[in-house]
Every structure is written in C-alpha cells, then in structure tokens.
C-alpha cells in the first residue's frame, strides 16, 4: 500500500514518456487515465479504511529523505483528478481539434504527474519542484492554443514562476529556523513570531498567484480562455486546485495567523463578487466561464478565515468543530467545482466549435441543434451555483453552517450573492442559445433582453451596452481563440462528443446525493479530523 503515493506520481510520468515517443499517443494516454482512475479509487478506499498512507521513497526516513503522505485531502482531490482527466481525454480523443496539437497527450500527462506530486508531497521542497512541473505543463498546454494563446501563456508562465519563487523563499525561511524540510516536523519546531507570519504571507501570496486569488487573478481569464477546448477544463478544474491544496496544507500545519486570515477573507469575498460580476459582463463564452473560476476560487478561500481559529494550538472543541465543518464544506465545493467546471468548459468548447464563434451572441439558436449540449451546460451551471441536490449545495450548506455558528454573517451573504451571480451568468448564456437565430435585429435593439428576466439585469445590461469603468478594457480585449474555427465555419456536434461532459455532470449531482463518505474522506489525516 505504501506504493500508492509513488505510483500516483510515476504512472503519469511513464505515460508522458511513452506518449512522447509512441505513435499511438491517444491509446497510451487513455490507458494511463483509466489506470490512474483505478489507482485513485484504490487510494480513496485505502485511506477511508486504514487512514493516511505515509512513505519515503529512496529508503531514507524523513527528515533526511522525502516524505510522501497520501491523506484524505490528497485522496479526495486525487479522485477528482482521475475522473476529470479520463473524461477530458475521452473528449479530446473523439473530438476533432479539441487537443490543439499532437503534443497534447504527453504534456497533459506531465501536468497530471506534477499535480499528483503536489497532492502527495509532504516535503516543502518537493512541493516546490512539483508545483514547477505542474506549472510548466500547464503553460505548455495553454500555448497549444495557437498564435493568440502565446502571449497569455507567457504571462501565465512568468507570473506563476514568480509565485513559485515566493514559495521557495518561504521554504528557505522555514529551513533557516528549523533545519528540516518535512512539513509536519518543521511545523512542530516553528516558533511564533515575525518569521512565522512572513512565511505564511509569502506562501499565501505565492500560491494566491497560482490559484488566481483576487486581485492576483489577472492572468487567469486570458490563459484559460485562449487554451484549446481539452486544456481549459484541466487547468480550471485541477491545476488551480493543486496550488490551493498546498496553501491549505501549509496553513493547517503552521496554525495560521488571525490578521492574515482576515485579509484573505476580505479578498475571498471581493473575488466572489468581482469575479461573478465580471463573468456576467463577458461577451466571449470561454472568458465568461473563466471569470466564474475567479469567483469560485473565492469560495474556497472563505475557508481560511472560518477555520483559522480552529487550527491554532489551544483551540476549543467548538472551534475545531467549526473548522471541520468549514473544511468539509470548502473541499466539497472544490470537488464539485472541478466536476461542474470541467463539464462547462467542455460544452462551451463544443458549442463554440458548433457555431464557429467564441462569442456568447454567436450561440443564437444552437439550443435547437444541440439540445443535449446546452442542457448539460445548464445543469453544470446549476451545480456550480450550488442549487440542490448537487455536491456544491452540500458544500455550501456546510460552509454556511460553519459561518452561522461563528456569527460570520458576511460569509453567508457572500455565498448567496455568489450563487445568484453564477446562476445569472449561466442563465444569460442559456437564454441566448434558445433564442431563434433570425432574431438578430431585435437583439441588437434590446441588449438586455435576456438578462432582464434574471434578478441581476444591471451588470448584464452594461455588458452588451457600451461598457464603462474598469471593466471596459476586458470587454474590448475579449477575442475568439484561434483554435476555434472562423466565424460561420461551424461543424456538427459529434454523436458522442457531449457524453464526457454529461458523465461529469451526473457525477457532480450524484455525489451530492450521497456525499457523507466524501465529507469523511477529505478530513482523514488532517488537523480537523473528528
């Protein structure tokens, strides 16, 4: 069983090497994805039954060797990785041009290897190397989107590596004080003081960049929107989560900092509102979906202010209980976002390709031609907004429960507003798809027609009308990605093309119905374990 953490990392790496050389890249990649899902399920079952799996490859015990730890968080997110990667690979295999390049398969597998290493590494420097592997893979995948994707890819690379350096300086600071790199051993030795606060601040900024926490999110919409169809879901559903898991690990191990937690709480709230409003104002479909990721990232970060009191050394039982509720709620939302957002990006790519335009307005009438795809997009949006019975609803409920217990009413307001904004953005897209294609004149004269029927007509109206204020530049720069065919060059939606997204959506709903085991899983081996 101690092989599990190592296998999770090495299997996709072996796959990447084979896929880089063998002619049958797809077959190799999908075989690896199936095996990876099998490993993830085994890992989840093992962790639920026997608790966390600790191992140290190389034959040296920590702190001399590298500690790997497969805990509930790693197993839970690992399940998400297994499901999403398989679904996206199947989509890329059966859909023309979704992958962007023949190099897609090996680069995607490298990214998955980096992600798995991030999840299981319990050694701070190994986390740094793994983060870099994940970043280089993710940037390469964005760059497959053609000439228009190169500039966003470069920006993503430079900013993300800057975040890595911040993390590396934090690692150096921890090592300077404790003389070890294993997270748990170092955390036990680390005294309170300026150095601890600086470490947490550096980790939060460095990983905040990589998770696109407002206001460090500016790189994300461009990169996620310009990437090929089969890349955006991997980035949004998985890569962003990897960095968040590291942040959470370090906060939980080091006990957190109350002042910094408040700052993170404010930023998280701003992210939910700002990302939600910005998503409504986008005219380009994939940018709309990408901005909604900025908002959703805010939800996960709400965990930090809610749980910090329960992470401290002398926390009361009630505080730990709140932290556990918030932890489970935020991680369940994270998993549900991964499933639903992957489905949303896949369907968005399919719809854009079907009408030959990346613009939201170009989708008119597509609901009649591809009803299943539009329906999947809508249901994924509902899951994202956190309506019952989806997994996100369960997560949101727990998060609200934790917030009400501590009297953090602003968290409740944020969650409700964020849900409304997500629902409005989805509704806006779905309304456009259902409008007959020949209704062009009426639409031009009535820009807010679709959004007028939703609760948030004001921001939506300003999206189609002349945008003013700070968001103006974003509306102007939204341009279709080059991987999409030229306007009017739409193609028919393949018979099986929507199935991976449908499966992802079904999983997002089904896990919501029976989510108790999942909630239990994600706390195994963590500081908030019951």
């Amino acid at each position: 069983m101690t092989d599990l953490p190592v296998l999770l990392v090495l299997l996709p790496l072996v796959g990447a090497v084979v896929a880089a050389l063998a002619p049958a890249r797809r077959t190799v990649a999908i075989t690896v994805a199936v095996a990876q899902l099998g490993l993830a399920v085994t890992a989840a079952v093992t962790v639920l039954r026997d608790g966390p799996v600790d191992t140290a490859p190389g034959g040296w015990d920590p702190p001399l060797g590298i500690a790997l730890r497969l805990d509930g968080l790693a197993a839970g997110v690992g399940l998400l990785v297994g499901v999403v990667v398989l679904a996206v690979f199947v989509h890329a295999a059966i859909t023309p041009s979704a992958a962007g390049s023949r190099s897609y398969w090996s680069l995607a597998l490298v990214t998955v290897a980096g992600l798995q290493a991030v999840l299981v590494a319990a050694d701070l420097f190994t986390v740094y190397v793994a983060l870099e592997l994940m970043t280089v893979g993710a940037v390469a995948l964005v760059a497959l989107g053609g000439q228009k994707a190169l500039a966003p890819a470069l920006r993503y690379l430079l900013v993300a590596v800057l975040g890595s350096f911040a993390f590396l300086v934090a690692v150096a600071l921890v090592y300077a004080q404790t003389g070890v790199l294993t997270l748990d051993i170092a955390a036990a030795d680390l005294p309170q003081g300026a150095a601890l606060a600086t470490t947490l601040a550096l980790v939060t900024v460095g990983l905040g960049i990589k998770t696109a926490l407002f206001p460090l999110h500016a790189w994300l919409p461009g990169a996620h929107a310009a990437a090929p169809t089969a890349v955006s879901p991997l980035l949004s559903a998985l890569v962003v989560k990897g960095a968040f898991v590291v942040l959470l690990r370090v906060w939980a191990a080091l006990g957190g900092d109350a002042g910094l937690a408040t700052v993170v709480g404010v930023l998280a709230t701003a992210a939910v509102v700002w990302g939600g409003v910005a998503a409504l104002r986008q005219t380009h479909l994939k940018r709309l979906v990408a901005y909604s990721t900025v908002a959703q990232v805010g939800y996960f970060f709400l965990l930090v202010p809610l749980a910090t009191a329960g992470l401290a050394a002398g926390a009361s039982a009630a505080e730990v209980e709140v932290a556990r509720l918030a932890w489970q709620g935020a991680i369940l939302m994270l998993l549900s976002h991964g499933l639903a957002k992957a489905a949303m990006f896949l369907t968005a790519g399919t719809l854009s390709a079907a009408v030959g335009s990346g613009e939201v307005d170009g989708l008119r009438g597509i609901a009649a031609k591809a009803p299943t795809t539009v329906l999947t997009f809508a249901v994924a949006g509902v899951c994202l907004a956190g309506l019952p019975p989806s997994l996100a609803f369960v997560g949101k409920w727990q998060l609200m429960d934790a917030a009400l217990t501590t009297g953090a009413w602003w968290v409740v307001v944020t969650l409700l507003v964020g849900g409304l904004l997500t629902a409005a953005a989805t509704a806006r897209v779905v309304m456009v798809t259902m409008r007959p294609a020949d209704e062009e004149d009426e639409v031009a004269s009535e820009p807010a027609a679709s959004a007028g029927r939703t609760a948030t007509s004001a921001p939506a109206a300003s999206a189609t009308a002349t945008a003013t204020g700070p968001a103006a530049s974003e509306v102007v720069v939204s341009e279709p990605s080059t991987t999409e065919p030229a306007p009017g060059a739409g193609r028919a939606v393949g018979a099986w093309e929507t199935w991976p997204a449908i499966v992802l959506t079904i999983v997002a709903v089904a896990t919501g119905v029976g989510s108790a085991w999942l909630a239990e899983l994600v706390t195994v081996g963590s500081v908030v374990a019951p």
Partner: protein
Amino acid sequence: MSWETVLDVLLATSVLGVAVATLFAPRRTSSVMLFLVLGLLLVLVWTRLGAPDVALAEAAIASGVTGALLVSALTRRSAAGSAETPRGGWRSAAAELAVAGTGGVLLGGVLVGAARDGLRPDRLGDLALDVDGVVDQPVTTVLLDLRALDTLLEVAVLAAAVLAALAVHREGESSIGIRSDTRPVLVSFVRLTTPVVLLLTGWFLVAGSSRPGGAFQAGAVLAGAALLLLLTGRKDLVPTGRWLRPAVVLGLAVFLAAAVLTRLVEGGWLDLPASWGVAVVLVVETALVVSIAAGLTVLVALSRPRYVDATTSTETLGGAAPSDPPRRQTEELT
C-alpha cells in the same frame, strides 16, 4: 574592519548596483549584457560563501547557459527598437526601487533573524554530511540518493519545457533548423575543440560521483559542442530530426526505469543498494547528460531569431563565398 569585510561589502554593493542596472537598463541588449556581468559577480559571491566546487561549477555553468539563451534570443530589430524608457520615467523607477528596497530590507531582516535563531546542531545539512551514501560527494549524495525524487521531478521539468518548446515551434514538433555559418575559421575551431569538449563531458560525468562535476555540467558542455556543430552545418553529427524527441526524454525514461528496477529488486522506489547503486547512478547520469544536452540545444536553437528562412541556409556545406554578405547578428558588440 578586516579585509574580508571590505571585500564582502564591495562585492555586495557591486551585485546590488549591477542588479539595479540590469533591471532598469534602457535597451534590451544592455539589460542582457549587464545580466551576464551579474552572473560573473555571483560566481565570486559563491566562492566567498564557501560553496563546494560542485555547486560552484554548476552555478557558473548555469549562468553561462542562461546568458547564452538570453543572448541568442536577442534580435536586431528588438534590440534597436526597444529603446523605450520605463513607463513614467525616473519617478516610477524611484518608486519601484523604494518599494522593493524597503520590502527587501524587511524580508532580509526576517531571514537573518531566522538564521540566527535556527543555528542548531541537528540540522538536516549536518545529518546529510554524516550519511554513508553510495557516492562520496555530499551534494551529489543529497541530489541522487537522499532526495532522488526531487531530481527525478526536476528532470521532468526540463523535459516538459523542451517538449513544450518543440510543440509551439514553427517547423513542426520533431526537428530544429538552425542557420549555418561555414566560414573556415569557425569550422576549424569547431574541429579542434569538439574532441576536447567530448573529453571534458566524460570527465565531468565520471568525476561527479566522487569529485566536483555532474550530469548538468557535462550536459551543458555537450550542448555547447552540439550547437557549434549545428552552427557549422554538421547536421549529420547531431540528432535534429527523428532522434530528437527520444534524446530529450531519454534521461527521464532511464530515471523512471531505475525507480521501477530498484522497487522490483530492492523493494524500495529509488532505494539505491550499496552493491550496485553506483552503477545505477552512473547509468542514470549518462542518460541525463544526453537529455540535458539535447534539451539545452533545442531551447537555444528555438529561441534564436530567424533572419533568414531556416530551410534555405541550413544545408549549405563547404564554406560561403567571401563576397556573399552574411546577415547575422552583430549588435551584441557594436
């Protein structure tokens, strides 16, 4: 005040000054040249800090490689056309300096304080010095024995970067073109130095297990030879087509194979046994040299600007006529 203190302060001041000049230089070319100077100054700093030879050699060669990458990426057009001053002029530059300086001093204070607090005898570094690993060099022991997984992932990062570079490359994902320059002076220089470079590669590789050296140094030197050969049109000696991708991933593949082999035979992933661990290290390092050399060659070749279509001049062998005015970059020196 001792001589050493004076030297340290002088060195630190120079590093700071050159770093600021690098960051705020008005032109790309001067920025890159100043960065090369920064690299040289840092080598002096490593010596002052008592970095063992292995670290020193690798750091020195690395700054050379970075310099080569940056210089080769300079273009005539961008070098000349990028003489724009920073937005907002000196005012914003001063503001940036003030912000970064204040933040840096604060962070530096915290780091120095942490280093003073943390001087305990049971640090990892002291434990690692006493380890009886399969190789004698302590830094190599840490890299290939104690923390082999880190090195494996690091090799994967390099492979991923090179595969990505090939994927976004204009001429397709499995070949690189490079303009050749077949003037007799260069050709005979390459002929003279290639055997020396190959010798040096082998020495670095073997010496890595007991003395300064290692796969990265050997790979970087080999990449230099490969680039020179490509530059003089000897595509027959350097894999640029079908064998390029295999060469790039060879190191990662062999490293992974070693991980699986040790698991099957010894029962632990990357658990190097005393009896044949050295052999594993040597085989892995040899494969790494090939991959590092191939990877660095690809990265330098693909970041070069194309003044002339790569396909028209790569095949010219046997020396260009003196009357044929070659267009190539000379702006580095002028």
